[in-house]
């Protein structure tokens, strides 16, 4: 290795794990109320928040409640009263949170909740995987998946900008992989507070329905049924929710662009193309697995194989058009998931990509790879096998899918 000193540290340079990066991202976004309940591998994240508040680094009300159902319920109240709100959870905590979780997007509450993704019992495990986040993909929250500690820190202010946008008004999950990112330590350059303040602008969290004793109002009365204006009213709410979700795609792109201009860090907002210009086969990845996959793509390129990669950052709403376009010229696609879709015997991202490609005039064969469950590692060697298999599919071979990348790990 050559002499170092290429990368100057500044007073804002930290060497921290992904959970602390998330806590800093939250602190810099100046939430009014934070409600927490600890769960592995999220626990240190909420401990950092409590510490920041205790040390005066963060001016927020910390509500240390008795479980995740209460976490989200108290944040509903805080958000309806006009507060900016934050929490974080994982796996079984998310499961326990589900009842108010389901209500949140329908109430159009622009909160941000980190999901420190973890595989879900049973078999009993406490380690990383994306089964928790993937299980709630149809509930109506926006989902963004981060690749690095720096991206975690930056994506939380970006998430508030998206959530609180008048065209969106929906909650956002900023997802980061349990273990590999939550406990993995790397350099993070904290954005300046003034930069985040200017980016987020004047706080106007909940202009559409605000709990105020001076102006009493009923929020979320019984709606729907089969008579009178019930059905049309219900449809109006649902359509509005879908419109907000659809509008989020452009808002997410604009928010990332704005963040890039202010910080110099231009994260890919929806998807990232890597070496796709002349690619004949492509891998699709999501989250922290992507770096090892890029290394494997480079290795395959050295062997003369024209391989590219598409990483998904925004999974909800699903950026179907840009994915279809990115994959329009390849002869085969291998989609690597860190979770299982039990209904289709494949990975959940695989099923989404399959649906997105239906609109393309040329039928591209796809293969589903599932790896990294319950903390398992997905190494460049695993990705090398995935590339080799995808090349075989491109050559016309039929393979049994899904392929479980860690099936023969010793």
């Amino acid at each position, binding site marked *: *290795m050559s002499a170092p000193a290429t990368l100057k540290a500044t007073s804002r340079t930290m*060497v921290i794990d992904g959970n602390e990066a998330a806590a800093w991202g939250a602190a810099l976004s100046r939430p009014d109320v934070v409600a927490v309940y600890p769960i592995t591998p999220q626990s240190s994240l909420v401990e950092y928040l409590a510490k920041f508040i205790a040390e005066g680094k963060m001016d927020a009300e910390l509500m240390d409640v008795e479980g995740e159902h209460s976490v989200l319920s108290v944040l509903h109240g805080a958000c309806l009263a006009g507060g900016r709100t934050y929490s974080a959870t994982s796996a079984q905590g998310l499961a326990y949170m589900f009842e108010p979780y389901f209500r949140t997007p329908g109430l159009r509450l622009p909160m941000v909740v980190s999901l420190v993704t973890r595989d879900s019992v049973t078999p009993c495990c406490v*380690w990383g995987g994306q089964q928790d986040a993937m299980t709630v993909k149809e509930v109506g929250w926006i989902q963004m998946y981060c690749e690095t500690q720096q991206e975690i820190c930056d994506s939380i202010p970006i998430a508030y900008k998206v959530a609180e946008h008048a065209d969106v008004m929906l909650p956002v999950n900023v997802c980061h992989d349990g273990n590999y*990112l939550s406990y993995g330590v*790397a350099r993070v350059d904290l954005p300046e507070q003034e930069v985040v303040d200017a980016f987020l602008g004047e706080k106007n969290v909940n202009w559409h329905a605000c709990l105020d004793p001076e102006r009493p109002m009923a929020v979320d009365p019984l709606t729907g049924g089969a008579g009178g204006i019930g059905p049309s009213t219900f449809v109006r709410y649902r359509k509005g929710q879908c419109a907000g979700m659809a509008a989020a795609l452009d808002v997410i792109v604009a928010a990332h662009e704005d963040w890039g201009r202010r910080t110099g860090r231009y994260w890919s907002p929806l998807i990232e193309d890597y070496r796709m210009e002349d690619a004949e086969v492509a891998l699709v990845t999501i989250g922290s697995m992507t770096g090892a996959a890029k290394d494997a793509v480079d290795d395959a390129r050295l062997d003369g194989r024209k391989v590219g990669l598409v990483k998904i950052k925004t999974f909800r709403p699903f950026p179907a058009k840009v994915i279809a376009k990115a994959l329009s010229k390849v002869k085969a696609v291998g989609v690597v998931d860190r979770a299982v879709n039990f209904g289709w015997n494949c990975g959940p991202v695989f099923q989404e990509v399959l649906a997105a490609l239906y609109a393309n005039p040329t039928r591209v064969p796809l293969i589903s790879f599932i790896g990294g469950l319950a903390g398992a590692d997905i190494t460049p060697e695993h990705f090398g096998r995935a590339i080799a298999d995808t090349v075989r599919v491109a050559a016309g071979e039929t393979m049994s899918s899904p392929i479980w990348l860690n099936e023969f790990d010793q």
Partner: protein
Amino acid sequence: MHEVRIHGRGGQGAVMASGILAAALVGEGRHVMAIPAFGFERRGAPVVAFLRFDDREIRRVTNIYAPDTVIVIDPTVARSVDVFAGMKPGGTLVQSTKKAAADMVLPSHLARVALCDAVGIAMAIFKRPITNTIMLGAFARATGLVGIDSLVAALEATDFRDAGLKQNIEAVRRGFDETIITQLAAHAA
């Protein structure tokens, strides 16, 4: 890219050591990725932490299977786990022990061993066998890949729960000063 695997036992601070080393290397302008291996944490159980650094961006967020350097901060953990597993030929072992290199059974592909009586030093400084920062000094001495001043700067930025900063600075310096390096015959220049 240089890859390091740290072996220790729960409670000795192997994971904390990897974080301090990461901070020291970032202070020198390196790109660093440190990942603790995970299990059910309990005191005394074998623990592993991984750290890789480079002058280029590091993209892979994976465990380490073929380390260049292995740091063993506990004198007995090598009885429970194969600390040499997957080690690259020509690698370095940085071991906490009272033994001399001649009295140790070492794999033939090792190039260098750096031995430090870290427990003896820890008992003198901390009155407890906490060897993590001592062994970072031993790593600096053995490899020259991180400066002692960078380690001290990283210690100064560390939030120590139950040991003083001054003690840890003394520990890292004594680890550096009191490490004995042996080049192994097969790899002697």
